[in-house]
């Protein structure tokens, strides 16, 4: 994983007035590879972007902050929450390149909320709301937020015209101003036709490669899952492709046939690796996208996840920092799987555990010792009745067994449906440049 380098410089700066929470070192293996400050040790906070539920608390989507440092007196507790004043199908989040701000999107109302998590990570503040995505681009359902230098690349799921799955990517600068839009391809490249659908974004800067995947549009993801499954026509409207883009030109160069809604994408970023991996939701397979000696990329299915006939619905993956292991959550059977990726052409499941009646996102610490799981997929797709557990569960991982660390019951605490997670850490004894008084 590339780490954006911070410069260490001896300098003389006069007059410091205030200590500010600027430097944070953060975890995750799924962030933009050139974002600064990846946490290599213990994360201090887990931020959860939670969907509001009518009648539960204030019913609003909210960013919930949980103390995740075992050395803290409030370890495993909710220490902060901030509502955005509405319910827009909270879903995914992404840091800006400097890790000071967290962008969070709503799949229903297409709003984007910008939280300041750098100044005081234990108490994020909502500093901006971007509501011109559809007006500027025609797209809807902002999903993936991927940091580019000085700007945010957003992968969308739908469009404002027919609310189907044909969509594209949009780019905003870090100030929140719209810059550009790029349609997902609908024509053919080398005999493979694009379906125009979008979902995840993942960049490999050393290869000038931008890889995208495809899911479905508003018409399906905001509809009851049981109805969608029974609707033959609706089931035709899921993505079946991935696209390799030239990052510099932002032109699609290759389209891959990957049936069954390929979702999250993770690059193997250690030096010498030339592949990325994804999981298909409907066909329950792991797919490898790999470049051959001639520079051509190809996609192939390399493993099954659970029993595909039972549609376990793999929904999220988390790759280890050395790209030798992969966590996979399957929603329907509430199972967390671990695959050995030592040979990415032949992943092997080496562990699995039932971690809830429904499980969705999975995030691990950089060192792989901690694994966090949330329960909610989409407001209209979550299970009902007693199976509608809504939680964040933290586990220790010793390489053999997931051991519970703590749990937050989002229903009991009236917080809604927990979806995406991001980690932050306390600043490490730093001050703002203004007024520094140097010894």
């Amino acid at each position, binding site marked *: 994983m*590339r*780490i*954006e*380098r*911070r*410069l*260490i*410089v*001896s*300098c*003389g*700066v*006069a*007059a*410091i007035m205030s*200590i*500010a929470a*600027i*430097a944070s*070192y953060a975890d995750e293996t799924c962030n933009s*590879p*050139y974002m600064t400050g990846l*946490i*290599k*040790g*213990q994360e201090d906070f887990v931020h959860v972007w939670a969907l509001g539920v009518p009648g539960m608390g204030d019913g609003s989507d909210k960013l919930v902050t949980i103390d995740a440092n075992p050395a803290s007196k409030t370890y495993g507790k909710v220490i902060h929450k901030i509502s955005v004043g509405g319910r827009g199908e909270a879903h995914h989040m992404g840091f800006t*390149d*400097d890790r000071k701000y967290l962008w969070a999107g709503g799949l229903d109302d297409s709003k984007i909320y910008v939280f300041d998590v*750098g100044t005081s990570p234990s108490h994020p503040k909502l500093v901006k709301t971007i509501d011109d995505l559809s007006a500027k681009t025609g797209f809807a359902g902002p999903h993936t937020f991927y940091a580019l*230098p*000085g*700007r945010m690349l957003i992968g969308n799921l739908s469009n404002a015209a027919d609310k189907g799955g044909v969509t594209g990517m949009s780019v905003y*600068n*870090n*100030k929140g101003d719209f*810059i*550009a839009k790029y349609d997902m391809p609908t024509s053919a490249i080398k005999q493979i036709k694009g379906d125009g659908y979008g979902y995840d974004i993942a960049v490999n*800067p*050393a*290869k*000038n*490669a931008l890889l995208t995947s495809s899911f479905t549009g508003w018409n399906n993801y905001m509809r009851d899952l049981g109805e969608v499954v029974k609707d033959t026509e609706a089931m035709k409207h899921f993505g079946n492709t991935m696209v390799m883009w*030239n990052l*510099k*030109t932002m032109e699609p160069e290759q389209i891959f046939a990957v049936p069954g809604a390929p979702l999250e994408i993770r690059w193997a970023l250690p*030096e010498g690796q030339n592949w990325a991996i994804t999981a298909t939701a409907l066909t329950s397979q792991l797919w490898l996208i790999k470049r051959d000696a001639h520079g051509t990329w190809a996609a192939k299915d390399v493993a099954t996840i659970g029993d595909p006939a039972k549609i376990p619905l793999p929904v999220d993956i988390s790759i280890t920092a050395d790209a030798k292991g992969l966590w996979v959550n399957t929603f329907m059977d509430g199972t967390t799987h671990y695959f050995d990726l030592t040979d990415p052409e032949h992943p092997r499941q080496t562990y699995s555990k039932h971690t809830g009646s429904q499980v969705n996102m999975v995030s691990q610490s950089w060192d792989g010792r901690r694994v966090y799981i949330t329960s909610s997929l989409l407001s209209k797709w979550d299970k009902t009745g007693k199976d509608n557990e809504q939680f964040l569960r933290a586990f220790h991982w010793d390489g053999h067994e997931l051991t519970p660390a703590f749990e937050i019951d989002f229903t009991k605490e009236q917080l809604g449906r927990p979806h995406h997670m991001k980690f932050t*850490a*306390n*600043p*490490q*004894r*730093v*001050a*703002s*440049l*203004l007024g*520094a*008084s*140097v*010894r």
Partner: protein
Amino acid sequence: MRRVGAVAGVVLTVLSLAGIAAVASGAVDPGKATAPRMEFVPPPPGSYKLQRIQRVSDAVLLDSTGRTVRLSALTQGKITLLTFFYTYCVDPLGCPFAHTTLANLRDRVRDDRALAGRVRFVSVSLDPTHDTPAAIASYGQEFTIDPKFEWRFLTARRVPELLPVLDDFGQDVSVDMDENGRATRTLHHMLKMFLIDAHGDVREIYTLAFLQPQVMFNDIKTLALEAG
């Protein structure tokens, strides 16, 4: 300053400075830093469009002779590569690396007839207190020796006059504190270079992973072709 060779294709791994570990908490390991890798053939100049990322706001700074200068005068009229630095930077993949990359790029730009007189570099100090006009003049001497190429070194009168510039560019900076809460002499910032067109619009931003000289050169050529 230590010279580092051309970046393209280079796989250079440098251990983090001891100073970084001192900054981080015990549990945090910033790990290794690596030079940017380039494992692709960059698209040719003019075959793509660079995004208009943001407009550069104006400010008043000091040049290396101590004269006040408007930033807009040095971010318009030519294609500009702007970066931030410290004269005392010792990070092998920090300011020295950035300026060596720029120096190599300057040689390529200078040798390209189509770019003659159309490109400038601007280096802005992040430490106005230490980096006086005399200090940046001394530091910049190595880079400004060629009168045919405009490479300007700037500083500010005071930190408060620099802060709006940093904010506009989204350039974060922080100062380490010791265990007693006193400021040390160590700063952090994320290495960024800004490619600005002749109209004063930022068209590309290079963080460390994107400091790929061939790509940067092609981007400059692309802006030159766009301007005609």
